[in-house]
């Protein structure tokens, strides 16, 4: 049965954020259920079908299900366009209402409200603002409990369908092949998407393709971080986005090889210990 996704009204999101900032509603973020005033909601034009999926976050390792959750969520909202998917009213509603249990489990607050002092209250408020709300920029979308999953899948799903001229040679059986690489570790997600270059699907997929073909490199946080840093530096004087697929792949490979050579075994051991 199809229906239309509810979202919060802008005024409601503004008020919720204000009340949280003032600490008035912080206690509610320790509760599994919070009633919603229908007057604060409105139907969107986003068509959804019942039943809504359940996102899982096992207590012992909530990060482990990021990939399956991303695929399930993207499959549930396949027609969402980029403009809709950057609307703060949608994501606030999903984290507070439709996927509240998941958001609590994956990005909830530890302990109890009664244990918080002034300093930890402020930290808790900032943490909730970061993972339960967005404000219209991609940094917030990368960190929001639900938005980050949808965008991870959206940015990486079957690039050969979106841009066959550029990615035609990368066709895979699994449309989420590159989503799997992106969400393989938290480090890959953070290091690759936190850089402004990650906004270019051409650079993003080229880097993920390299990581997918070089498992050892992809396991090293230091190497991934250095690779992205070096590519970012190069971007300052060279518009990598204008390169053709072959040129871009060669550049990523050459930069990664230089990074591998510069990061010594001792560095890797320090990294492993940390």
């Amino acid at each position, binding site marked *: 049965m199809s229906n239309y996704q509810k979202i919060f009204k802008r005024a409601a999101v*503004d008020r919720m*954020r*204000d*009340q949280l900032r*003032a600490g*008035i509603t912080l206690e509610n973020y320790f509760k599994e259920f919070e009633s919603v005033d229908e007057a604060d909601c409105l139907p969107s034009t986003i068509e959804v079908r019942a039943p809504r999926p359940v996102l899982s976050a096992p207590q012992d390792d909530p990060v482990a299900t990021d990939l399956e959750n991303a695929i399930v969520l993207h499959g549930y909202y396949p027609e969402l*366009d*980029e*403009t*809709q*998917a*950057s609307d*703060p009213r949608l994501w606030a509603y999903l984290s507070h209402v439709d996927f509240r249990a998941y958001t609590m489990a994956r990005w909830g607050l530890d302990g109890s409200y009664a244990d918080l002092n002034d300093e930890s209250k402020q930290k808790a408020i900032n943490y909730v603002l970061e993972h339960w709300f967005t*404000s*219209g*920029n*991609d*940094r917030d*979308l990368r960190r929001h409990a639900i938005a980050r999953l949808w*965008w991870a899948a959206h*940015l990486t799903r079957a690039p050969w369908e979106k841009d066959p001229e550029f990615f035609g040679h990368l066709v895979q059986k699994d449309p989420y092949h590159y989503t799997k690489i992106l969400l393989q570790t938290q480090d890959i997600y953070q290091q690759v998407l936190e850089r*402004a*270059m*990650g*906004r*270019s699907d051409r650079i993003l997929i080229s880097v993920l393709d390299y990581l997918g073909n070089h498992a050892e490199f992809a396991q090293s946080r230091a190497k991934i971080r250095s690779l992205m840093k070096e590519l970012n530096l190069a971007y*300052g*004087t*060279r*518009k*990598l*986005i*204008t*390169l*053709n697929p072959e*040129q871009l792949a060669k550049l990523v490979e050459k930069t990664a090889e230089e990074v591998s050579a510069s990061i010594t075994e001792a560095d890797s051991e320090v990294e492993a210990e940390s």
Partner: protein
Amino acid sequence: MKVSTKSFPHPVLGNEDDVGGEFKLAEFRYELGKEEVVLNPVFSLKNKAIEDLIKKEKASFVVEVECRGTFYRTSFSSRETTSRFVIPANRIRERVTVGFYICADQDIANYRPSESHPDYGSNAFDVEAGDVLGVGGYCSFIAEKSYDPLRPPVSSFMSIREGTFHEGSAQIDYTDDKIAIVLSKSDWKHYADVRGQKVSEGMLHASVVLPVLVDAVYQVRDENGYYIDKNWHSRIAATIEAKGLQDKSAYEVAQKILEYPLDRSFKSIEGLLEVTEDESV
């Protein structure tokens, strides 16, 4: 149009005095449609060596488009000084930044731009595909189809809200999509009584909104400002540019955006005084 200078490994046209001649955006128009956003840049290029590279298909004009709200970054290339590029409207929202460059299309050995600064002597450079050969600055626009930058409703970048404190000074919150003027509960009650009435609009604009907007204009003009990624920031910046107010003082800019609130306020006061005098007769 803004131009950032930086240190390149080779001389770059438009980057300080690296290279003589000119590369700039002569004109830039954008069309916001329901389905598409169309960019129409017109370039002006005067440098023999780089003109030759473009003619020989070794370099191109490049337009780089970036939208921080939707994970969007792409580039368009052309060898014509007048171009037309199309972006699907649903790929971008709010502030969109557009950068203008000339880039090498292939590796070029012994690149020696004409009229390069004497400091470079007779040196030649090996440039690679993608290397920037010319910088033409960057600009931004607001990709909101229902939004007319020439007549922006103040409510698109500013709101007045009730605070959680009972009395005391009003506060400004710059951290959201819109600037929020946060009134005490006591002030909010008075505000709620008079808002929406024609007679009070000019006075509210002059007494409540104008001082905040003046401060906001200072924030927008601060190149190292803290709020550069906020939607209100880009909307005010786009309005200043669209209205041609770049050279005006912050106080004058704010008055023009609000369409002369002091004048409207004085007229409202005069109207009220006339009513009072009539009542006293």
